[in-house]
């Protein structure tokens, strides 16, 4: 069973304690200046946004089929069986393909560093392994950020919508987007207004499938193409070999002839 986070924007009061707890958990600086920043960055993995007095949290979605893990040439990202998508900094070569490819634009970079790392929410894997909740869920005073089993949270989200249909848009963002994510969002407003990519745009197909369709052909392509190329080489050079052999034969015959005459 994999864990997930359910964020219910209608309960969120915008206190930003999740931001602070996240910073503390990940040993990042957090003060009033950082709190005022409304964009995610290498030193701010999660952000609570305000728009028309409504709040929205942004964080890594922890895709079921993570794009970052698929594109990384050295496999620096992987999804653990508990759900978090984690990053092994010692493998990273800094190509930033993960940043370009992520449909949610979550990986951020230490642009000023001389040995830069990719930074993003990693869903407190150590805490989860120890049987605890994520730091953000634990500190949330209203339960807007809730940690639990993904299946349970989906059932609960559906139940909340059913009980209070006027409070919510009838939609759980992350349920099926790019094949499902381990962060689920309930809201009264469109998540797209807060910078989330539109469901229709990213679709329900896991992003790795787009490249998988091409990559899976390569093991067949290599031997076939090698044979074709080798075949062409053989045929086009065979002509010369034959010509050469014939010429030699002719020479031999002639020398025999001339030898016989003598």
């Amino acid at each position, binding site marked *: 069973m994999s864990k997930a986070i359910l964020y219910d924007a209608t309960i969120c009061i915008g206190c930003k304690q999740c931001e602070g707890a996240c910073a503390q958990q990940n040993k990042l600086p957090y003060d009033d200046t950082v709190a005022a920043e409304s964009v*995610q*960055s*290498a030193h701010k993995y999660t952000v609570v946004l305000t728009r028309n007095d409504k709040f929205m949290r942004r964080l890594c979605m922890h895709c079921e089929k993570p*794009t970052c893990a*698929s*594109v*990384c*040439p*050295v*496999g*620096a990202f992987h999804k653990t069986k508990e759900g978090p998508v984690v990053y092994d900094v010692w*493998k*990273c*070569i*800094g*190509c*930033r*393909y993960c*940043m*370009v*490819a992520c*449909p949610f*634009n979550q990986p*951020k*970079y230490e*642009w*000023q*560093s*001389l*040995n*830069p790392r990719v930074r993003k929410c990693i869903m407190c894997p150590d805490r989860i392994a120890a049987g605890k909740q994520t730091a953000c869920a634990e500190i949330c005073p209203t339960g807007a950020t809730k940690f639990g089993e993904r299946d349970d949270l989906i059932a609960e989200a559906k139940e909340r919508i059913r009980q209070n249909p006027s409070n919510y848009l009838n939609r759980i963002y992350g349920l099926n987007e790019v094949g499902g994510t381990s962060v689920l969002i309930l809201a009264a407003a469109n998540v797209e207004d807060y910078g989330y*990519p539109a469901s229709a*745009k*990213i*679709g329900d197909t896991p*992003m*790795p499938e*787009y*490249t*998988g369709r*091409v*990559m899976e052909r*390569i093991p067949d*392509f*290599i031997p076939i*193409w*090698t044979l074709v*190329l*080798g075949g*062409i*080489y053989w045929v*086009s*050079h065979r*002509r*010369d070999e034959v010509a*050469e052999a014939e010429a030699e034969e002719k020479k031999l015959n002639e020398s025999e002839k001339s030898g016989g005459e003598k």
Partner: protein
Amino acid sequence: MKIKLTFWRVVFIVIMALGLYSSYIRYFHGLGAATNMSDQFPWGLWIGFDCLCGVMLAAGGFIMVGAVYLFNVERLHAVVRPAVLTAFLGYVLFIVGLLFDLGRPWYIWHQLIYMNFHSVMFEVGMCVMTYTTVLFFEFLPNVFEALHWPTPIKWIKKIYPVLIVLGILLSTLHQSSLGSLYLIMPSKLHPFWYTPALPFFFFASAVAVGLAMTIFESTQSAKVFGRQLELSVLVTLGGALLVALWVNALLRFEDYYHRGLLGQILKPSYEAYFLWLELALTYLIPITILSFKKARLSPQWLYLASIFTVLGFITNRLNIALIGFETYVGHHYVPKWTEFSITLMIVAMGFALFGVAVRYLPIFGEEQAHAVQPRLGREAEAGRAVVTPVLGHAGD
């Protein structure tokens, strides 16, 4: 030895000096100080030009090796060596460019031990690494000839069929894979450039650029080094280029038609302007030029058509890597002067190394007649008989 200070040498020194200063900023103050890349624009000019265009511009190597050694078209023999040299330098400089762009270039070797077989980038990396090695061996006979060491040339000749087949296989794979890199971004890359056919387009355009680059570099070096060039070679390449351009153009048209975008690409928009520029440079102008028989027989027109083709496909790659993301990101990316400076330095190094190689190695020399392939076929003999040294004085 006295080195004369010519105009181009001064330009070269200025470019190198600025480039070295920019390199200092890059490595001692970080990517943030040296580039305008950001969390919103994680890939900039270095990926767009140094990597995507660099590999594309080096395609002449595998195209010419394929034509001469695979298909045995011996009349093109004269351009194989410069094409292989260009390709070898192109790949080496691509790797140099990568060392600037990677955030942790000192871990580039991780590619060899932490392999992720699902990653297109991994595939590109492995192919480029192997192909650069293949090119090194294809280039090596030049050095041995210059040193008059016949024995190692014999060894290389023994494995030549393997090198040829391997080189073309690897080129097919990674030229197309550079397009596959973008397949995973259907929601980000503008629909003018995002298509499931990207890998095919990247390969098809590499073939066209390979031909165009061979025309360009042969003509250019004929001018600069006062070499003589057979017109028949250029004419053959020009004809092949026309066919390759038509194939590319039809594939593009079919793709837009299939995806119902024909109306949209004609409407003025930010992306449309760049697309028009690209299509005009890649197809409209060179195809128009090459459609005239007179132009196909004229070295000057062939040279011009090849320049347009190369510029067109460079525009194509930059559109994909940079312009195609601007609407999604919501702001423009303009490279910092240091990014331009380092790119320029790498290009200048390419030209300089090419010059040095031509000067000291038998790239165009007489030795090439009995070089890698000692036998000259009937076709080549015939071609040699109708030598037309048009370009010998073109640069005067």
